[in-house]
């Protein structure tokens, strides 16, 4: 017993302590609110927002306690009764919009009477729940005018105050267009049957802008009514759809009819397809809104009777729904002579087709051009029915070269791993297009296990273009190898005697940036055989970092062979762009060296392209020196404006001079725009 008493006393003690602590905390928060409100009384726009920020922050604590909220509201109500500044009252009304209750309504109602303060009162009133606010707004409505009245009406609408319908019905007839318009919008939001009836009357008798507003509001009331009084909503939709001229309103009504008609929606859309093009278009857009298991046969039957654009849109809508029942119609549309319809049908096939469509799609992809080809390819690549992959592999054997190439390409695009063996065989096909596609696909599908075979295929490939593709494949697979990625390629390159094959392997090493291959590269650079030099230069130009940049510059300076020089210079310029650690002045020096070496206009243009990326006044001076060069002036103009855009703050006067010089001579729109922007920045 003694023990129990002690426990009870302990619990009591805790309760008292918690209550006391809470009271202290509560008092502290309230005191802080009062002190801050005192500061805010004289706050005006343009002064420090310190007290405002602090009170905003304190509101988090206020929200945690009913007592604090009540106390803060009380203090704010008192605040609004003082002659505090407008800025202060505006801020306080924002706070009351969150914590205010019916207690705040009287003081806010006072503010509502004054056109200067009515908006800030509504700011709070609109968010405060309860009928006290509605009553206050309705009481103020009759006594207000102009924008104050408009504001009250808008707030009644936002609050969906059903008791305001009669008053608002009257104000729909107000001579002030804002008042009438706001009343219509408010009735639309309130969306009771009374509100809808009131709107119906206005729709019948009004015209022009008011009619448009009334129609929108009437439709909005129907949307609001749809869940609770479907018949009333349908009546409105049908009336607007059948009787009104406004296209947007009829479209909105059609949407409402479809949404409320269940299984009957398909028939509504079928009939709509016979209307004008805007309604037809809207109807097709609504196909996606139909319930999942709707019978779309009547719609599909209308497909070939639609305009070209109508067919395209309906095919797309059916495809989006994966409407398998449309397959026959889609296959028929694939044969259309109209390219747009054909493309839409091909795209649709990717969504509703299966393995039986593989041959058709490959054949169209192989024998069509441009957009149709692209659509057929995409469709073939996206067909996701079972057995499609298997069908693609099996069809490769039996197809013509053109079709085979498409199937091979698709195997890569579809990432068909089981096609790898077949692709390694097709990489030896007699047809070079097939071989090219096979190498492309193998870049995705091969693994390091296939590496030896890929090296052999690369070495044995005789067509230079396709060999380049083989090199890319080789590199893609080499990148999957852990450890010394270049080892096998280096060995193959060292023993390879055919210059072109050797060159291909060196390029693969270049693309890999294989540091261990640099010795091999230098050996070839120093060879007496110009072809070997070219092979090495080509490979070094592809390097992934700047390691061989000096090698390229050296050979560009030393060689007597024009091709080697151009290749080396191009490679040098490419590698120059790779190093982000060099500062722009250092880069400029290197570009100037390149410019001195560049014999051809095309190389000089490339130098200007590189310089255009620098942020340097000296770079601007360099490119500006070519503005008068007939062969280089266009590139110099672009480069000057690009650099000017970066350096205008460093020397505005000089940049202005150059920009004006450019503007004086150029007819390039893009250059004019950039130059003007630079000048604007300088002058602003």
């Amino acid at each position, binding site marked *: 017993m003694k023990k129990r008493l002690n426990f009870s006393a302990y619990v009591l003690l805790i309760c008292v302590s918690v209550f006391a602590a809470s009271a202290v905390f509560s008092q502290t928060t309230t005191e802080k609110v009062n002190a801050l409100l005192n500061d805010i009384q004289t706050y005006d726009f343009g002064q420090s927002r310190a007290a405002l920020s602090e009170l905003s922050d304190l509101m*988090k*604590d206020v929200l945690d306690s009913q007592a604090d909220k009540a106390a803060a509201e009380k203090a704010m109500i008192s605040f609004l009764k003082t002659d505090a500044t407008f800025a202060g009252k505006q801020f306080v009304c924002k706070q009351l919009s969150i914590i205010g209750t019916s207690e705040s309504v009287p003081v806010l109602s006072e503010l509502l009477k004054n056109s200067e303060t009515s908006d800030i009162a509504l700011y709070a009133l609109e968010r405060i729940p309860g009928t006290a606010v509605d009553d206050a707004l309705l009481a103020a409505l009759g006594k207000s005018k102009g924008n104050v009245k408009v504001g009250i009406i808008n707030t009644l609408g936002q609050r969906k105050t059903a008791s305001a319908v009669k008053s608002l019905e009257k104000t729909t007839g107000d001579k002030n267009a804002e008042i009438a318009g706001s009343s219509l919008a408010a009735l639309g939001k309130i969306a009771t049957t009374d509100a809808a009836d009131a709107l119906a009357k206005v729709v019948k008798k009004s015209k022009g802008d008011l009619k448009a507003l009334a129609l929108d509001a009437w439709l909005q009331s129907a949307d609001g009514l749809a869940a609770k009084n479907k018949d009333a909503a349908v009546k409105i939709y049908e009336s607007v759809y059948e009787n009104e001229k406004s296209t947007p309103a009829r479209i909105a009504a059609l949407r409402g009819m479809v949404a409320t008609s269940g299984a009957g929606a398909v028939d509504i859309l079928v009939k709509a397809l016979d209307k004008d093009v805007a309604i037809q278009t*809207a109807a097709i*857009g609504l196909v996606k809104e139909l319930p999942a298991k709707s019978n779309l046969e009547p719609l599909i039957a209308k497909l070939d009777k639609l305009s070209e654009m109508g067919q395209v*849109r309906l095919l797309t809508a059916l495809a989006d729904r994966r409407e398998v029942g449309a397959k026959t119609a889609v296959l028929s549309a694939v044969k259309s002579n109209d390219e747009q319809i054909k493309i839409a049908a091909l795209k649709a096939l990717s969504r509703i087709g299966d393995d039986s469509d593989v041959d058709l799609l490959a054949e169209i992809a192989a024998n069509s051009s441009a957009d149709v080809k692209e659509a057929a390819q995409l469709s073939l690549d*996206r067909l996701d029915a079972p057995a499609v992959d298997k069908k693609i592999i099996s069809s490769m054997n039996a197809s013509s070269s053109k079709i085979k190439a498409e199937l091979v390409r698709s195997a890569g695009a579809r990432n068909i791993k089981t096609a790898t063996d077949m692709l390694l065989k097709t990489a030896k096909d007699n047809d070079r297009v097939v071989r090219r596609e096979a190498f492309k696909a193998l870049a995705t599908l091969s693994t390091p296990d296939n590496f030896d075979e890929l090296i052999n295929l690369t070495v044995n490939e005789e067509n230079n273009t396709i060999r380049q593709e083989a090199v890319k494949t080789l590199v893609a697979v080499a990148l999957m190898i852990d450890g010394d990625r270049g080892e096998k390629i280096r060995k193959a390159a060292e023993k390879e005697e055919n210059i072109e094959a050797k060159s291909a392997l060196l390029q693969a090493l270049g693309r890999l940036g294989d540091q261990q291959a640099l010795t091999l590269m230098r050996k070839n650079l120093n060879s007496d055989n110009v072809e070997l030099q070219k092979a090495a230069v080509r490979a070094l130009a592809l390097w992934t970092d700047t390691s061989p940049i000096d090698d390229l510059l050296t050979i560009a300076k030393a060689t007597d062979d024009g091709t080697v020089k151009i290749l080396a210079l191009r490679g040098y310029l490419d590698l120059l762009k790779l190093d982000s650690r060099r500062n722009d002045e250092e880069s400029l020096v290197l570009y100037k060296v390149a410019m001195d070496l560049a014999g051809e206009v095309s190389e000089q243009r490339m130098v200007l392209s590189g310089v*255009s990326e620098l942020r340097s006044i000296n770079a601007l001076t360099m490119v500006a020196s070519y503005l008068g060069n007939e062969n280089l002036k266009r590139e110099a103009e672009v480069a000057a404006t690009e650099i000017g855009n970066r350096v205008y703050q460093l020397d505005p006067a000089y940049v202005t001079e150059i920009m004006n010089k450019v503007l004086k001579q150029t007819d390039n729109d893009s250059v004019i725009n950039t130059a003007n922007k630079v000048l604007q920045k300088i002058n602003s």
Partner: protein
Amino acid sequence: MKRRQFLKAAALSAGAAAFPTIVPATALGKNGAVAANDRIVMGFIGLGGMGTGNLNGFLGKSDAHVVAVCDVDTDHRNEAKEMIDRKYGNQDCETYNDFRELLDRDDLDAICNATPDHWHAIVSTRAARKGLDIYQEKPLGYTIAEGRAILDAVEKYGIVFQTGSQQRSSSNFRFACELVRNGRIGQVDMVKVGLPSKSSIRDVGVEFTKPPEGFDYDMWLGPAPKVPYSPGRCHWNFRWISDYSGGQLTDWAGHHIDIAQWGMDSEMTAPIEIEGTGVFPSGDTILYDTMESYEFDCKYKKGFTIKVMDRDRHPRGMGVIFEGTEGWVYVTRGEIDAHPKSLLRSTIGPNEVHLYESNDHRQNFLDCVRTRQEPIAPARVSHRSIMVAHLGLTAIKMGQKLYWDPEKEQYVNNPEANRYLSRAMRSPWKL
């Protein structure tokens, strides 16, 4: 500039393009009646930074024709007119101070709405009621309710609506999301989104003065509370004032939060629990009051969390990290990274999820205006992307963990939080 782009730029010369016929919308009945070979007739509302950027972009499209511009700043609209007239070689572009007059034209097919955030809903809902297709800058709405109003209007009137969340039209972002959607990094329980931190205020002065000649300040304020003019309030800097925007968070939600939602296939929903903290400017500032630093967790019904934070708190600064049980994917502008690296070479197969492919955001809009297909960043998607930011902002402002019902778009058992869903507009403005 890449060498090819450089040489291409150098090769361009004025007036080379040949254009198809202009057929105004009136001749065709609007609402999707643009024929295949006709140019889409556009009006531009809001010609500040983003508006001018969009204008430049659309002027470069051979299938768009801009006939009218509207801005409350005379300088802005005159500069825009000059650009347009120079492009077309005539003086035909009309200028407007009041967007309602522009929308009343009967020759428009579409508009571009690049007004400040607090104007988005008023302009776009009105345009939708006119049956005009809309390219609108993000964020979708200043509040969740305003975003919902735009979405409702767009759906109701069958409008093609593209949000300016152009990252969706970048292959990097699409590929990153496809990797995630196709389970390449296993199950993803955490997504970390990094957005800019401190407000990037442009120093144009904050003194309170008379509005400059030619600037309709009252119209600029529109539905926002009445306050005196300051140059630091308008144009670029509106973003840092809560009467008009939600700061960096809402300015960028339409980008990286949008990508997080895309990757997680949560585009049509929103988190159910939101909790976090943020730092607002101290009292030293006299104008700017949006968050400078923030971090909040958004837990979704499926169990994963999207953690949104400013760049100073994010492991990679800006961008999105999807963290999975078998790896991770990081994506931001101009960069994609993954672990394992081999993911970056992986191919998305035919039986896998292929996301909407667009490589040109504005062209995607124009194409959809013709085909009536949904663009890549429609209102129903951007409504949810910005919703995440609004929810986070409210949770931080209230200092509470909030519970959200994504279906009803209401906070659960929290009437005070629900008050943040909308804001009263200054009379006479309304939705």
